[in-house]
Structures are given as C-alpha cells and as structure tokens.
C-alpha cells in the first residue's frame, strides 16, 4: 500500500467514524413516545454502523416480542427519519428485530407507507393523536419534576400557580418540559405560566392547582415505573446489556441508582 493510499484510507475511516457518531447522536434524539426516554439510553439500539458507501445500518430491539406495535412503529419511523437526515448518510437501513410485527413495520417504514397502509385492515388511523396523548403526559410528568424542585428549594406550593417559566430553575428538567410544550404547540415563552393544562394550554388556576399537581405526580410515577419495567424486561431478554450485572433486577437497581444520582444533581 502506498503512503497516499494509506492516508486516504485513514481519512475515510475518520470520516465514516464521524458519520457513525452523528448517526448515534441522531438516534439519541428519538424517544420512546410512551416512556419519554431516548432509545439510546433505553438500550433499544442494538447495532449501528455506516458502510463505505454511506449506508447507515441500524438495528432496534424492544423489551418483549409483543410490545405495542403502534409505539414500535413510531420508534422505527422516527429513527429512519433521524438517521436519513444525517449529512453523509446516503441510505438508511433501519430494522426492528425479534418482534411479532417486525416485517410489517420494517417494510412499511422503508416504503414510507404510513401506519395504516403498513397494517392494512388492522389499523384505521395514523398515530398522531396517540403521540400527542403521550406528549401531554410528558408535560404533566415534567411539571411534577420542575415543581417538586421548586418546592424543595423553599417555594410555597400555593404560589406555583402564579409563577412563569422564567421563575423555574434552569436545567435539563426545565429544558425538557419546554421542549415537550413546544412540540405540542403549548405556550413556552419565559413569560408564560409555569403550569398549564396540557390539553388547552390555559394556565392552571389556584383552585385547581392541588388536583393538577396530584395528577402530575401520578403521571410521573406511572411513566417512570413503566420505564423501569421495560428496562427490566429488556435486561431479562438480552442478558448482560448495558450494565455489568447479569440479572434484570441488579440491572434495574443500577438504572435506579443512576436516576437517583441524576435527580440529586439538580
């Protein structure tokens, strides 16, 4: 091999590695709509690479063979779109594996057929409303995270209905809340109310605050418990992934500890 060839092969490898890293970052923007966590963090991306021709090859896996096909479809389609948009990717080959509806989903996504067409006779509506439902839940759960931190820092709970987004402490929880509100088209400027009804965007009034915060807390508990079950099931199905422990339950404890650390950091 000549010096020039070696150098250009090295340059190519660097470039491919750069694209592969960009593909991973793109996948990190895709969330499980139900759990509101990134696929990369959940362990749902089992493989990703970029070939010499610039084809991005991505393989996804889920906690069970029977995970809901509607959510599965959204994740595969969102991954396909995110990866296709990465500069340097010429073609996307994104496939879900080990799932009862994998063929229908993979074929439908690759053909950009839409959900109804991919499951002809079995589905009557696209998934926009389902996605919006879960974004509203994400707003509720996020409201609990942000408000809980405010109360812990000494803000009286009864004052929360009078606060705006600018009054909340900066940090990942607030950014995430604003991001989800933005996606839903809800008010998300600094001067907008901190606590809004996710269905209408109206500020929650003081007399409705207690009930609203109760629902926000329950929504967060539900979402996080569900995420915990899914992570545990994934670890049972694919032993040894993502952690040093070999059982689902130790893995679960690791994940919980990580979450605790993150919670304590802000």
């Amino acid at each position, binding site marked *: 091999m000549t010096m020039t060839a070696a150098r250009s092969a090295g340059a190519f490898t660097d470039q491919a590695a750069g694209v592969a890293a960009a593909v991973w970052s793109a996948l990190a923007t895709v969330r499980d709509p139900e759990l509101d966590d990134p696929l990369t963090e959940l362990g749902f991306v089992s493989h990703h690479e970029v070939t010499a021709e610039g084809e991005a090859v991505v393989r996804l896996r889920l906690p069970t063979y029977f995970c809901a096909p509607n959510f599965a479809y959204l994740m595969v389609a969102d991954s396909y779109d995110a990866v296709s948009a990465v500069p340097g990717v010429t073609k996307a080959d994104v496939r879900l594996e080990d799932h*009862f509806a994998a063929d229908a989903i993979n074929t439908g996504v690759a053909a950009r057929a839409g959900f109804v067409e991919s499951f002809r006779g*079995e589905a009557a509506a696209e998934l926009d409303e389902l996605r919006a439902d879960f974004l509203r839940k994400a707003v509720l759960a996020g409201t609990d995270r942000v408000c809980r931190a405010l109360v*812990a820092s000494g803000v009286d709970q009864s004052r929360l209905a009078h606060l705006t987004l600018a009054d909340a402490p900066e940090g990942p929880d607030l950014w995430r809340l604003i991001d989800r509100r933005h996606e839903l088209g809800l008010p998300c400027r600094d001067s907008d109310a901190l606590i809004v009804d996710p269905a209408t965007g109206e500020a929650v009034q003081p007399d409705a605050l207690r009930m609203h915060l109760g629902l926000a807390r329950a929504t967060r508990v539900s979402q*996080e418990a569900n995420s915990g079950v899914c992570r545990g099931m994934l670890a049972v199905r694919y032993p040894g992934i993502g952690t040093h422990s070999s059982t689902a339950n130790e893995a679960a404890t690791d994940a919980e500890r990580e979450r605790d650390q993150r919670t304590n950091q802000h």
Partner: protein
Amino acid sequence: MYEKNGEKYFVVDGHTHFWDASPRNWVPGQEQYAKGWIECFHAYQGLGPPETHWSLEDFQKYSEERMMKDVFDDGYVDVAIFQPTNLKQWYTEGFNTVERNAILKEKYPDKFVLNTTFDPREGDAGLRKLEADVDRWGCKGVKLYTAEWRGDSRGWDLRSDDATRYLEKCRELGIKNVHVHKGPTIWPLDKDAFDVRDVDYAATNFPELNFIVEHVGLPRIEDFCFMAVQEPNVYAGLAVVVGGLMHARPRFFNKVMGELLFWLGEDKLIFGADYAIWEPKWQVEGFVDWNMPDTEEYSDYGKVSVEAKKKILGLNAAKLYDLDVPAELRLDQPAAQPVAS
C-alpha cells in the same frame, strides 16, 4: 393464612391461572404467536427473585400438584380466584379456559373461586353460555378482555348496547364482580388499548356491580387513579404491581402503592399473585414486611398499617366474594357495635 409478628393474615389470591401453553396445544400456523405469548409471560417472571424462576418448559404447562403446593401449601393462600383467558386463536384447547380452571374448582371447591368470561359480540348464544356457566359453577365474577380482536371487530367497549345487555344479565344472574383487563395488550394496533373510560361509564350505570381493574391500567396508572377516585364501586387488582415491581423496582413499588393508596384508599386494593407468572409465597412475605420508607422522596405518602395490609391481602376480596373468614382472621370488631334490632 400467613402469620408474622403475632399478626394473622387471611390471604386471597385475586388473580390466578391454570394454563396449558405447551407446544402440543399450539394451533398449527399460529405457533409463533403461541410461543411468543408464553415467552413474554416467562420474561415477566424474571422480575421476581432469582430463586423463584422456572425453566421455560416447566412454565409452559404445570401440574395440579405443583399449583396446589405453590399456591396453598407454600404460598399461604386461603382462597384463589381463577381469572380465565381463552386465547383460542393460538391455543387449540384454549390457554386458561373456564373449563380447564373448573377441573381444579370441582376437585377443591373450598380453595377456589371460579370466574367465567363473556364477549358481547357473541350475542344471544353468549348470553346463554353465561347463564349455563353460572348455573353449573355458581360464578360470582367475570373476567373481560375489551381489547380482544374477533374477525373484523377491533375490540369492544363497556359502553356499547351489547355490553349493557350482558351487564344487565350479570345483575340478573347474581354476578357481582366484573374484572376488566386493563393492562399490557397488543391489539387494537393503532389505539391505546388501556383506555379506562368505558369502565367509568359502566361503573356509574351499574352501581350494584363492582368493577375490578386488573393490572391497575398499567402502564397508565394515572388515568386509572383519576377515574377510580370518582367511582365508589371501582377497585384496583394488584396483579403485576406486586409481582413486577416489589422485587425488581422497589422504589417504584413504593410510589405506585403510594399513588393507589392516595387515590383509592386501602379498602379498594385487591392482592393478586398472577400465578404462574409469579408464586405467591415471596409476594405475601414481602408485602407484609414492606412499608413506605421515611425518606423525603416518599413524604407525600402515608405509612401502611397492619390493618390495611390485612384488607389488601385478603379481606377486601373476601368481602367482594362473600368468603367465610375465620373469626380470628377478621379485623377487630369496633368496641361499640350497634345492637341488632
């Protein structure tokens, strides 16, 4: 009966099965679904303590002897309630049918409560079957799967006229308890099959029936809690909550129990082990030992009393099914009892 620290608990397992998912029961051409289903159940077992895990082969089909030992001899259960699951589209003889459950009910009449099931899409024939089941076994409860597909139909709704006819028939036949599966499901594909609004409607229109939401609407506990708080005749079936969270996710177990107690209260929670996904023994022992931790994270939630645990583990279900609870296992009677006239 379970005894700990001088306290005695009457244990009702509100959710049990006697299934056959062995390969010889798989419908030809549907093997991948029959196999996928039982493997999915088996993976759930992985969320329990390692020493309670079974091999897949044992899990596909278990004997009467094993069930009697696990549930009653080792598991402290006094009475277990069968909740049938037909799944005849994948399993030739069905997965966990009323008829299969009845084999054990007939042999051990005092150990089991036998529930049946109905599907309003079966019309008059289904009503006659419901009558026949009640006539034959004296069923006091039904287990319903509203999300089940049938031909072109993509599930059904408790608010429909057909369902109302069946609920009226339940009332007429003396069926009191309607267990509705609102938990992990597959179909309908494009819907959120965990929607509990139809339970809300039926519970309002049939105040004399009790509606037990199995798996508490997991993974949508918040929707369930928000509905149940408004309906006095709605209960939470704890199958999966204890088995799936208490060991594997203790922090979330605390919080989910905290929410259920906050919204529904201790009189509305019904223990269920979900055998053979999980054995009752570790669940009963763990639940009696469990309490809400004192840390700040759980400060919104109250402590759970021995009395509350007795209700959740058995006395609430005993009340729903008129089970005979030995005097020593009942709650202490209030000192001042009104005199019977």
